[in-house]
């Protein structure tokens, strides 16, 4: 290459020594390696947390869905009302007694 600036050459007006720069470059290299490893671990950790959160959400969602399904079933059962439930617990004889129970049979006081 034709050097247009022979009087100046390629020297820079700065005086950082080779040894100083070797240390600086080694430091930057090691920091980058540490940063890279940390970033990878952080990414791995974030993925683990995200996976755990997704599983937890799935479990909670399934639980809520199951609870809702059961509640609906209970509401269907409860549609009979407390009187019907009570009548269902009676035997046939008790039910018959109840059916033929007359007001005039109530003793007078």
């Amino acid at each position, binding site marked *: *290459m034709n050097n*247009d*600036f022979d*009087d*100046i050459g*390629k*020297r*820079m*007006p*700065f*005086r*950082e020594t*080779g040894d100083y*720069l*070797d240390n*600086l*470059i*080694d430091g*930057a*290299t090691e*920091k*980058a*390696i540490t*940063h*890279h490893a940390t*970033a990878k671990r952080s990414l791995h950790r974030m993925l683990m947390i995200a996976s755990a959160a997704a599983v937890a959400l799935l479990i909670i969602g399934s639980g809520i869905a199951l609870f809702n399904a059961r509640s609906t079933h209970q509401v269907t059962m409860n549609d009979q009302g407390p009187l019907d439930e009570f009548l269902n617990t009676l035997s046939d004889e008790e039910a018959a007694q109840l059916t033929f129970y007359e007001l005039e049979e109530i003793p007078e006081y």
Partner: protein
Amino acid sequence: MAIKTDDNSLHQMLTDPSQREGGFRMLMKLYGHALYWHIRRIVIGHDDAEDVLQDTCIRVLNSIHAYRGDGSLATWLYRIATNEALQHLRRQTHLFQHIDALSDSLVEKLKAEVPLDGNELEIMFQKALLTLPTQQRIAFNLRYYDELSYEEIASITGKTVQSLKTNYHYAAQKIKNYIKEQTT
């Protein structure tokens, strides 16, 4: 280019996860000085250059998987370092300010960084370089200091070889004129 190495074996080390760290250390041993000075010539300040070199190392290590081996490793490294240095300069600009407007503050930084007994001609040369638009200054530095071919500079900067040749000669003339003005 000042540094040549067996890119293939280094590339193999960098793409093999078990050898990546060793390959990266070797890469930085080979190109660390060249990258530092390339960055320093763009951002001028030593502390800035140190920060940008650190960012460059991280970017290189994080994106080594993206290097396909199409161009040389050196060209790829220079491209990353150039982009990081330009990003660093952009962060110093105000809203809607172009990085070329930073030349005055870079001259001030230069004055603060040079030793008291610094060579006046060397300092004047750096000041002359700072009169060039940033992209032109980068291209000039890559040609003059790093002795890259125009094809390599084109690969780093995304400019055409012809425009780089024209710009280099224009920049050289501008620097000569600046020095002539300052010394007469």
